[in-house]
């Protein structure tokens, strides 16, 4: 498998505060990687750097050999918060995606919206957070791209809606593509991952294949995560 996303020695600070520090890792084609860590550990900063929405202090990001601002056609991105106008209905969002992305599959988007029992004419401002998240997911997963990046797709959502979103990802994910999913709700999604990258205060604390981690540690990813981020109890050391 060749490298789809390559991050090298990436650093970004917010004044004296650390965003991400000297991060390096690569994502191969077809891989599903979980970007995990507690709130404020740098997950969203890293994703914004990959998307070109933030500029690094040093280091580089390449997506199939291109810098982020030249690679937007290769990535389908779901940000943490809505990026559509509140007045907008999904019909308008479909139109925008259809206009700008040649790989957007409108029929698939409408089918997903139907499965989520959402109306394409309903404005976003009248939808609940869970409904908005599902609507965005229908939009993002209906593109045929090599890389999907989903930033906290299930935060602030009730467990029933979470399961529905997870199903939406599983059923509509193209097996040939790669997926980078950031979350701190690990137990819900850990069966998805091939690999996990744990971030801690801007650093990569752990980067391991899930199978290896389970076999060597004898724990689920969620259990390992909880122990790793429980300083008072003397967390396990990353290898």
């Amino acid at each position, binding site marked *: 498998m060749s490298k789809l996303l390559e991050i090298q020695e990436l650093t970004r600070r917010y*004044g004296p505060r650390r965003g991400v520090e000297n991060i390096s890792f690569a994502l191969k084609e077809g891989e599903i990687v979980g970007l995990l860590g507690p709130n404020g550990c740098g997950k969203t900063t890293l994703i914004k750097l990959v*998307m070109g*929405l933030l*500029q690094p202090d040093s280091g580089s990001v390449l997506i199939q050999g291109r810098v982020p601002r030249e690679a937007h056609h290769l990535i389908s*991105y779901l*940000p943490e918060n809505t*990026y559509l*106008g509140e007045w907008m209905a999904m019909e308008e969002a479909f139109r*925008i995606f259809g206009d700008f992305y040649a790989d957007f599959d409108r029929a698939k988007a409408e089918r997903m919206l139907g499965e989520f029992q959402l109306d394409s004419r309903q404005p976003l401002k009248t939808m609940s957070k869970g409904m908005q998240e599902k609507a965005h997911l229908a939009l993002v997963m209906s593109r045929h791209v090599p890389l999907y990046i989903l930033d906290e797709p299930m935060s602030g959502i009730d467990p029933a809606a979470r399961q529905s979103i997870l199903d939406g990802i599983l059923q509509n994910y193209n097996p040939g593509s790669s997926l980078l999913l950031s979350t701190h709700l690990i137990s819900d999604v850990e069966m998805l991952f091939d690999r996990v990258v744990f971030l801690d205060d801007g650093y990569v604390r752990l980067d391991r294949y899930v199978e290896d981690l389970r076999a060597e540690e004898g724990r689920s990813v969620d259990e390992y995560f909880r122990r790793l981020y429980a300083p008072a109890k003397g967390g396990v050391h990353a290898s």
Partner: protein
Amino acid sequence: MLRKLIALDMRAFARQLQWIAPIYGLLLLSALLLRGFNLPVVGVVAYVLALIGTALLIPAVLVLGIVRYYRHLYSHQGYLTHTLPVTASQRYHGKLISGSIMYAAATLMALAGVAVLMMTKGIARGDVFGKILVFFRGVESILAYLNISSFAAALFLLGVWLVIFLSTFALYSLCITAGMGRLFSRMGMGGPFIVYLLVTLINQVAGVVSFLLIPLSLRIAVAGDGIRLKIVVGFALRQLLEMGFKNQQMTFDELMTLGGGYVDFGLGSIVIGLAFIVFSYFFTKRQLAKVNLR
């Protein structure tokens, strides 16, 4: 892709126009009917409201342009705008062109409004276009006095109209883009205001310096029954120093006599204004490629 960006903006504008156009139309119609048929008080009120609406139309569209620029590029919607497969240059030009289309639409609406307001009194007198004809005759005599052809005057007005839009766009696009940039990342919405204050201060200083250093003036000279306008290479300050600063309450004729048949007005600040538009164009376009969303 640029065409699609403009279409996207125009759809948003059309949505805003859904509210503005009917309200403005209603104001004009009520002025036309109520004042046109000489209804006391309500007629005047309707006329004044329509006049205020007409005066506010273009500034309102410019303000909407500012709001849209910020929202689409730097609010949560920026996460979509900046991840669309378009270049920073296309993003900038999209906003510039869609903004100018909206400005043109607002101008046409305002001009139509002015025409309607001019017609209101004429309706009652049975002379609907009387005031409009009087207006054009007045314009004709002013042009004759200034020794300017109608074509040159139209070109000049078009230029002024375009420069008003370009300088407004240059100012707000630069202030928002720089103010939302990394340097002011801790100041929230205060960033653009600080940049605005800095830019205004620099422009003021540059305007004064340009008056002293740029040898370009508009010469107003007496010519027969009227006056002649001419752009000349020379410092307006020189004539000002020769004339002295004695009396600021002089009439136009006294001023002409003192100036030896002509008066020069410095155009340095206009040169600086145009230079600012060019600077803003390149600077803002470049900064849009290096966005740092919060």
